[in-house]
């Protein structure tokens, strides 16, 4: 019981007709890095806001360390640090003054604030720019100051909304290693939402995939891959020599193959079972040299794509029934595009 630090039960948020979050049941363990994945407008930000008590859920409830997020938001906010997407600072104040202000809002004593501020500025590499006004900061600098700002209250849990958005590759690497460090060294629980799969894959212990307000899959990346396989979808990516028409014909002829398609240098073989062994034998028997063979489905990109496909298929079914789901999807997509355009 106490192992789980964040739990939500049937958490639902409706905005008029549109349901932003549907019946969300989520548990997050202490000390883990959890990634909330999903396209823009999938309800990730709404979920994080409900966890912080900034938005009231329509149904269900969320708790952090046994505290109800709606009833006791002050207690929750005392132990949760929140880094909003595209964080803002008071432009007329320097970076250091902004941090002092946050410290005072948290009711920390002045000497603790001073000590922590210096330490954190050092940690995020902002000591030199700390006395500049924040309106002169670049996006990456703001992001780093934002992390210092979050850490100032020494939170047990850190919630980050799209932390990797708009940062250059070097900054991204630094940020990711910092997140990892926060979890491993300091033992903090981290919940981050993102639509950038690659980064999330690198640092998350577990991920949850969010589409249209519902959590359609949740688990470690390996688990999600396995689950996918159990559903009977295998894709084999291979390349062989000599690469000719006969090769594709041969592959199509192998028992159990559903389809063969070409993708650049590689050939994709779709099937319902694991065909690695049979395909290798078949190829060698016919005098082909196997150059590369990979079972797809193990990385997040794949999983993500699959789940989206699935969600879309369901969407189409709903459309066939003639309800207004499509309308809503379109609206969602449009607002999603607008959002990504704005960011």
């Amino acid at each position, binding site marked *: 019981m106490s192992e789980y630090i964040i739990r939500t039960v049937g958490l639902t948020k409706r905005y008029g007709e549109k349901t932003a979050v549907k019946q969300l049941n989520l548990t997050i363990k202490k000390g883990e890095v959890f990634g909330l994945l999903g396209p823009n407008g999938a309800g990730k930000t709404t979920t994080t*806001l409900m966890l912080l008590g*900034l*938005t009231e859920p329509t149904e269900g409830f969320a708790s952090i360390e046994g505290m109800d997020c709606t009833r006791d938001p*002050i207690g929750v906010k005392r132990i949760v640090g929140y880094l*909003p997407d595209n964080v*803002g600072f008071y432009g007329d104040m320097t970076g250091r003054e902004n941090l002092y202000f946050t410290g005072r809002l948290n009711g920390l004593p002045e000497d603790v604030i001073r000590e922590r501020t210096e330490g954190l500025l050092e940690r995020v590499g902002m000591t030199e720019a700390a006395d500049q006004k924040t309106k002169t900061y670049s996006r990456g600098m703001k992001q780093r100051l*934002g992390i210092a700002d979050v850490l100032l209250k020494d939170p047990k849990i850190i919630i980050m909304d799209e932390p990797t958005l708009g940062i250059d590759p070097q900054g991204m690497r630094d940020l990711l290693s910092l997140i990892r460090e926060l979890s491993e060294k300091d033992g903090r629980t981290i919940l981050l939402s993102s639509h950038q799969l690659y980064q999330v894959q690198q640092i998350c212990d577990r991920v949850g995939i969010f589409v249209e307000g519902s959590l359609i899959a949740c688990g470690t990346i390996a688990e999600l891959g396995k689950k996918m396989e159990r559903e009977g979808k295998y894709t084999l990516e291979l390349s062989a020599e000599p690469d000719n028409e006969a090769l594709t014909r041969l592959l199509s002829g192998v028992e159990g193959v559903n389809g063969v398609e070409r993708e650049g240098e590689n050939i994709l073989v779709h099937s319902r079972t694991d065909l690695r062994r049979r395909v290798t034998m078949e190829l060698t028997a016919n005098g082909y040299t196997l150059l590369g063979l990979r079972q797809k489905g193990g990385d997040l990109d794949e999983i993500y794509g699959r789940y989206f496909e699935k969600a879309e298929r369901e969407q189409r079914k709903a459309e066939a029934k003639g309800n207004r789901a499509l309308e809503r999807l379109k609206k969602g997509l449009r607002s999603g595009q607008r959002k990504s355009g704005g960011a």
Partner: protein
Amino acid sequence: MLILAVIIITSYASLYGALSGISSDSDYIFLSLYTTSGNSIPSFMSFIALLGPFVGIILGFDGISGEKSERTLYRIAAQPIYRDSIINGKFLAGTTLIFLMVFTMGVSVGAAGLLVTGVPPSLEEVGRVFFYLVFTSVYICVWLGLSLWFSVVCKNAAASAMASIGVWLFFALFMSLVAGIIADAFYPMNNDWQALMNSMGNYTLELNLNRLSPYYLYSEAASTIMNPSVRAVNVVTMESLSGAISGYLSLGQSLLLVWPHLAGLIALMLATFAGSYICFMRQEIRAK
């Protein structure tokens, strides 16, 4: 900042105007420093009545919407503070600044006038100036509350500024026209007979409608306070004037006349603040 500088400059200009236009036959020379207008320069009072609302609006119009567009509201709201302390802080900071500014300016203009004229104020005059400044501060706070309300409701700062200025223009310029039209509709005065029967009702209704406007309420109260010869704020018939001895009202009596005005202004201030408070507390904190 700029508007504060403008106000300080204009109030000294008005003092200069008053000094050149002042006449020594008044019994309240010190008060006339505030009320007299010089040639082409309006008086201190009319300057404040004109520019005061702007101070209030400028302090409030981007209170919440600015925090939203700078994206700092999220960060502040995620700290362990109650949500109402954000809006309370905004309003209290504004009112403190307004009271400080109004009193500093009123006292410094008085001091400068004292240095130049060399006429010391009587205790009653000091009292009148004090109450005038209180009225002014409350009046400006009404506009602060209103613009804060718009800043909660409007998505961006420009819209909220336009809305506040629009309301101000309406009250300052058009309210009296509207009040006149409505009063005429209820109590028509198209011929002598109607004029005889309805003039009392017409005038009273128009006055009361006008008093809905904080601008009118404030001007009426300020002129009563600063001008001891104003004896009544409502309709006075010839009958009730008969036998009256012409003279000045004491401070206590003047205050008695405008007491409802002060209560009304404070109520308006609290109402506008309550509006912004309720809207803010019920609002979703998400700046998109």
